[in-house]
């Protein structure tokens, strides 16, 4: 009787464990498929962005020849062309642009830029002139009137020429332009594309021992920049990233083959990491890591 009893238990256990293993195997397969699907989704998104940019290439080429190339800083605001004595009327604000990040909206009326009044018939031209003369990444103080009330915004003028993959290249009629060539963005495939970042909150900052930087949640698999999970990127060639997007934008401004110096907080110690920006097919230069004292910065 006991033998039958134990035999039954053994058989049931074997069957259940087999079913669980099969289920685990099935789950693994689904997870692998999900991972592959996510990768495809991201690749498709990347392709949409790349192809969208290529479509407008001939027009941008023409505009570059006319001196409207992306060599100056922008704030991402489209103004009404109609003359207005009360200021420059904002027709549209670029989604994700500097003005939108600062809080400006369509319908605002710009009345002053960096303390200079822009009320008058040529206010849109004046705003353009004033903004184009600021240094990239500098703060532009813009005063607007919204629903009759004055508001002040501090907009960080953005350098966007890297979006065309040709930093520092002046427009020249005889030059064969390749404004949509693969920049660092193209090199992110398979190298640092899978890196995951999170903007540091005060609580996270206290935990990791810093009040600035961007947290690396998942470091690149192929050890680009020698980053590790849990590192906090404090600066990229001296520029302090304020968000994951900002860090991405800074990294995107490098061309393949350029060297990048990162300052990283690792286990509450600052270290410097140097690497060469990878080409599309990553070729990592052995990173140079050196420990710094905490009072370096």
């Amino acid at each position: 009787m006991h033998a039958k009893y134990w035999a039954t238990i053994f058989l049931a256990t074997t069957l259940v464990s087999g079913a669980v293993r099969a289920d685990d195997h099935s789950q693994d397969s689904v997870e692998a498929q999900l991972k592959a699907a996510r990768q495809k989704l991201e690749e498709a998104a990347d392709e949409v962005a790349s192809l969208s940019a290529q479509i407008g290439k001939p027009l941008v080429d023409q505009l570059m020849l006319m001196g409207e190339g992306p060599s100056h800083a922008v704030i991402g605001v489209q103004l009404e062309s109609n003359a207005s004595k009360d200021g420059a009327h904002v027709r549209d604000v670029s989604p994700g642009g500097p003005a939108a990040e600062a809080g400006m909206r369509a319908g605002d009326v710009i009345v002053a830029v960096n303390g200079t009044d822009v009320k008058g018939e040529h206010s849109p031209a004046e705003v353009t002139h004033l903004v184009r003369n600021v240094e990239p990444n500098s703060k532009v103080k813009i005063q607007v009137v919204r629903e009759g009330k004055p508001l002040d915004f501090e907009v960080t003028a953005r350098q966007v020429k890297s979006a065309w993959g040709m930093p520092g290249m002046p427009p020249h009629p005889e030059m064969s332009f390749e404004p949509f060539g693969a920049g660092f963005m193209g090199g992110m495939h398979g190298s640092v594309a899978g890196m995951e970042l999170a903007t540091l909150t005060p609580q996270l900052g206290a935990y990791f021992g810093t009040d600035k930087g961007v947290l690396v949640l998942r470091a690149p698999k192929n050890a680009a920049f020698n980053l590790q999970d849990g590192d906090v990127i404090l600066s990229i060639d001296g520029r302090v990233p304020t968000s994951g997007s900002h860090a991405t934008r800074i990294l995107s401004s490098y061309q393949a083959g350029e060297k990048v110096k990162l300052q990283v907080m690792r286990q509450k110690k600052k270290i410097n990491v140097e690497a060469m920006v990878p080409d599309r097919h990553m070729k990592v230069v052995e990173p140079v890591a050196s420990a710094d004292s905490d009072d370096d910065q």
Partner: protein
Amino acid sequence: MHFDLEDSHSVPEIVQMLRHLPSESAPPIHWQEFKRRQLLRRARARSARRRQFALVAAVAVVMIGAVALWRYLPPTEDPMAQRLPTAASPMAHRPIVPIAWDEAALRSVASERWLASQPAEPAIVRVGTRAAVTNLEDRIAWADDTLTSMRAKGGEADRARALQYERDRLVNSLAQVRYAETLAADLP
């Protein structure tokens, strides 16, 4: 008067009966009259056919003439075009753009509305997809600033419209990429 013509009557009897018919009945038309009426009927039919032929021929001539006039006379203003704004009309500031441009503009309005409802970035930023997003955002920002500059300068209306179209398409692409980014971020 009624006669019952049966087989029992002989031919002479029938003749007699016919001769006794009353004289009020109208005499039947004679052969000459029959021929006259027949000729008249044929003449009327011929006349009607001629009129039909004439009418068809007249319509054909008028149509050929109209086509010839349309082909060889200088073109006049298209009535539809007259309803669209011209340089001198009060609506001159409203550009005449292809339908695809209008569609892109309408879609970009919806895309911008959706983008405005999204957070600036997902909680976890994947660098690969974010790079595509920031690239599009930078291009749109450049397009907007350049449009302001071109319109302020004036005289580049066609290029400005083309750039506006490209800008709208970039906004639509940005919405698509951000949607993909959101979906990927929501995956476990």
